[in-house]
């Protein structure tokens, strides 16, 4: 599937002739082909979601009889079952709290660090860079036992704060990487101008750089939201109290190794994903469009 995309890309580029005077290459055969490729590709990408949506309305009996058929009569009750006695909502609340705090901390620190990497030249900087890279490489499973011990000694085991702290630490390196990539596209002259202005370093950063960096910050926030919202491992080992469980943990309440009510499971998965969709939809507009005519232009 994907390899054909590459192949067609080449054809497409040949098919596109020149450009118009409007500053944007002309839409024609090329655009039509692009629409076609994207339509096919998106169908493949989105099919799982459609399948989940309609399968979540089947009875388990119907599901077992045929995995692919459409529901004969919609079982909205599956969503009621999935919501349980409101447990899913409690889990959603926990996920939301952990996600909001983690993402905010991560983005704030990553923005500052990304800016520093691009702006300042000091002798020890390469070492910090390399240690970031090493930190990025650590698989979470290696860290579990020492993390549990550390958090227990700090009295943070089985607390939401105890999940937030290592989550932030593990997502930071990649977030720094993304912010750093953004700051290196900002014209050097702009950075220097802000700094030379006589303003303090912190003020130059907060007044000039942060507003420019907003699209990148939102991008980092989206990426982090997806990761934190779906993370399973840290909440699993760091939380015990049932009322503190996050959504992905709560979801496993529906997955038995031997007997599973598939439609209810799918309904629960859809409900759980809803949160990230809402956040994504809300943040997306800050990433695309709108801000392109910002300060970077000068």
């Amino acid at each position, binding site marked *: 599937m994907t390899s054909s995309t590459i192949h067609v*890309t080449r054809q497409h580029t040949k098919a596109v002739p020149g450009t118009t005077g409007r500053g944007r290459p002309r839409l024609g055969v090329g655009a039509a082909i692009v629409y076609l490729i994207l339509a096919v590709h998106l169908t493949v990408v989105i099919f*799982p979601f459609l399948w989940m949506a309609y399968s979540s309305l089947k009875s388990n009996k119907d599901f077992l009889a045929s995995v692919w058929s459409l529901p004969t009569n919609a079982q909205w009750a599956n969503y009621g079952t999935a919501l349980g006695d409101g447990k899913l909502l409690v889990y959603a609340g926990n996920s939301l709290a952990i996600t909001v705090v983690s993402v905010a901390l991560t983005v704030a*620190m*990553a923005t500052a660090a990304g800016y520093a990497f691009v702006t300042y*030249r000091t002798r020890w900087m390469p070492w910090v860079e390399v240690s970031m890279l090493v930190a990025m490489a650590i698989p979470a499973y*290696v860290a579990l*036992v020492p993390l549990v011990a550390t958090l227990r000694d700090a009295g943070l085991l089985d607390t939401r704060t105890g999940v937030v702290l290592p989550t932030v630490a593990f997502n930071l390196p990649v977030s720094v990487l993304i912010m750093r990539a953004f700051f290196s596209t900002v014209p050097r002259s702009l950075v220097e101008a802000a700094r030379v202005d006589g303003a303090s370093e912190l003020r130059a950063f907060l007044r000039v750089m942060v507003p420019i960096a907003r699209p990148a910050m939102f991008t980092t926030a989206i*990426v982090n939201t997806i990761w934190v*919202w779906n993370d399973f491992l840290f909440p699993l080992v760091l939380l015990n109290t049932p009322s503190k469980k996050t959504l992905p943990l709560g979801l496993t309440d529906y997955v038995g190794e031997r007997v599973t009510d598939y439609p209810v499971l799918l309904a629960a998965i859809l409900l759980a994903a809803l949160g990230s969709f809402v956040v994504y939809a809300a943040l997306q507009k800050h990433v695309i469009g709108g801000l392109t005519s910002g300060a970077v232009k000068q």
Partner: protein
Amino acid sequence: MSTSTRSRAVRRDARAALLFLAPAVLFLAAFVAYPLLTAGVLSFHSWDGVSPRQWTGLANYERLLGDRIFWGSLRNNILVALTAIVFQVGVGMVIAYWLVRVVPRIKRFAMFLYVVPVVISEICIGLLWGFVYNPYFGLLNGFLNAVGLDELARGWLGDRSTAMPAVLVVMNLTYLGLYILLFVAAFENVDKAVYDAAAIDGAGHYRTFFSVSVPMVWSNVQATTLLAVVSSFKTFSLVYVLTRGGPNNATDVVSTYLFQTGFGNFEAGYASTIGFVQILLTAAVGVFVLGLMRRGKRGAA
């Protein structure tokens, strides 16, 4: 510039850099450095995860050298990384360019859909693709039979020769959305005037893409490639839900093997060795990729 002003500037730089970096570095020191050190120390021990540990020197490392499953899983990680560079970073860049420059009308809509698989719980992705690949009622074989290619129909995930490719397809389709998102954000950030200049030059999409868009977001290309490589070396969930690393270790990646060793086999010492070597290799490959791309930029510029 006098030496005193320069040294003052350097000092000011250092102080400011410290201020901006301290929070991030402290977080890493508290929650990442300690686990890393522990893993390093444990890698020289024999430990079942619960009893007192025993110092065994380099024994674990010697064992690792001769461990066929480890090297096989490392090979799979390299495959994951290579396909990720082509099908996530490469294709993601092209699709993002299309969305921003060719068909901006559907940009929002398409971006929303591309992110769906990234957001959906991996449990579901595993379940669904199990059904797609199922040799009896699976969609893939159903499709092959329908178009008369019955010969090709098989038990995709259970066949040693097709299991890894099958896993790679799922991975690349699932995570692609993330890269499209990152590149759309990057391309949006490119000054429109640059494109106008290219248009006046008479450049088509092909030339615009390679000589304007990509160089303009080169630092993003660098970052995303690094991200793709590092996450490929750490990949775990999708392999685990799709095949558990089987059949007979054919789809094991280092993380699934590490998990199996530490948590399945109760060999926490050896698992730390695997983890420690994995970290070193990943970081080394990361540095290599960065260096390569810095040179690439100089070459391009």
